[in-house]
């Protein structure tokens, strides 16, 4: 698993990656009440705001971790946003994307480096 400074995790699966948010992020956001996912087939650039999430406290975004194309989204989250708080590293993945340059994932943080970041 790889991590971004925006508290997303990426997991390689076949020719694509699965993306979600970390436990640290889920805890900081508080109870989620709304998730709006991107359309499958959308081309995204690193940093694009592609998912809207709202907790009891506020609205925020999840950005594209790298360049690529959205190939699947976790529709379950639309109906059950609370999954993100219950199982952020598992059942509550947000989307799967095909990376424009698959090697870019290697530049992201490993778990130890991420843990250092969040202290």
């Amino acid at each position, binding site marked *: 698993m790889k991590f971004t400074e925006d508290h997303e995790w990426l997991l390689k699966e076949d020719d694509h990656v699965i993306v979600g948010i970390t436990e640290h992020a889920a805890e900081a956001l*508080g*109870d989620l*009440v*709304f998730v*709006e996912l991107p359309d499958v087939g959308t081309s995204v650039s690193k940093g694009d705001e592609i998912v*809207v999430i*709202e907790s*009891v*406290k*506020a*609205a925020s975004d999840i950005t594209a971790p790298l360049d690529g194309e959205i190939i699947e989204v976790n529709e379950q989250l*639309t109906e059950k*946003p*609370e999954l993100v*708080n219950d199982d952020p590293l598992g059942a509550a993945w947000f989307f799967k994307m095909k990376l424009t340059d698959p090697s870019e994932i290697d530049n992201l943080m490993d778990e130890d480096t991420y843990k250092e970041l969040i202290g």
Partner: protein
Amino acid sequence: MAEIIQTALYELHISLGAKMVPFAGYEMPVQYTTGVMKEHIHTRNKVGLFDVSHMGQIIIRPKNGNLSDIAASLEKLIPIDIIDLPKYQQRYGFFTNNHGGIIDDLMVSNQGDHLFLVVNAGCKKTDIEHLRENLGENCKLEVLENRSLIALQGPKAEKVLSEFSNQIINMNFMDTLKIQLQGFEVWISRSGYTGEDGFEISIPNENVNEFTEHLLNNEDVLPIGLGARDSLRLEAGLCLYGHDIDQNSSPTEAGLNWAISKKRLNNGIRCGNFLGSKRILNEISNGADIKRVGIVPTGRAPMREGVKLFKDSNDTRPIGRVTSGGFGPTVEKAISMGYLETSYTKVNTKIFAEIRGKRMEAVVTSLPFTKLNFKRSN
């Protein structure tokens, strides 16, 4: 910037794992380890304990010993019946300004030889200045810095608090009671701001930790932060000052006509004679241009404060705005309150909100969103 104030319960909040945030000049718990959603639901099902010590506690005494004189002075600032407020009874009201807006909403009770006011933290300074400027020479004002205030809210609050005195069970909504505990006095009112039955309790600062810890030892009681306090009062359709009401909103616009005593209305025995009475009485008779309503989004996306409202999906002219909004954990959906031009305020009117550049459908509803569970007298 002024220094941030910690309440007497600060250390206790920290030890309970509270996430502290600045609020109206105070460092307050927004949530504990339980989290906003569960704290909210716990309050509706059992009992929530809130530190509301940031709120202002003010005593007004008559220098001449005659309470009805200060009640009459206060009636010029608050359009409710204070002169005939029965002893040990509390009433909800608001300070109005010259043009009929609301300076603050508050609780006032008759304590026999004095009046006791509880005002919002964010308005405390303004309120005190307003009182000093407008109350006559006969009124002696005491701002209590030596007392904390906690709220115990929820269906089991009576059971929990009756442990201290069985007189508690005889109290009805808006009754007040002073009880003597070991070496200190607590001032209780059967009220709150969650829509649940419950109590607000004023306790000397030096005793508040012990008292609060004792309450928290009861397995039905959990500490609740400002996050859940906000969603609880939103579900209960209650206004948050500075958001749903302010210096510009009138009681009629805000849907608070019910709070104005009949005696102060046209044909009442003490009609008018309060700040802003011209506009307020006129609007009570003829209505206002805008009105506060409940709003339920058709979809799941919460419509939060500041969101503009439109009559359809294209029209560019806003017909209103959201003043409070979020997710209601008990009603299990997004809910909002806001102001709309009066012609759009009929229940079930379809309106549209603009969120992130998109028009989203919503429906006008009545308030509150949840049933209010106050203990009314029979």
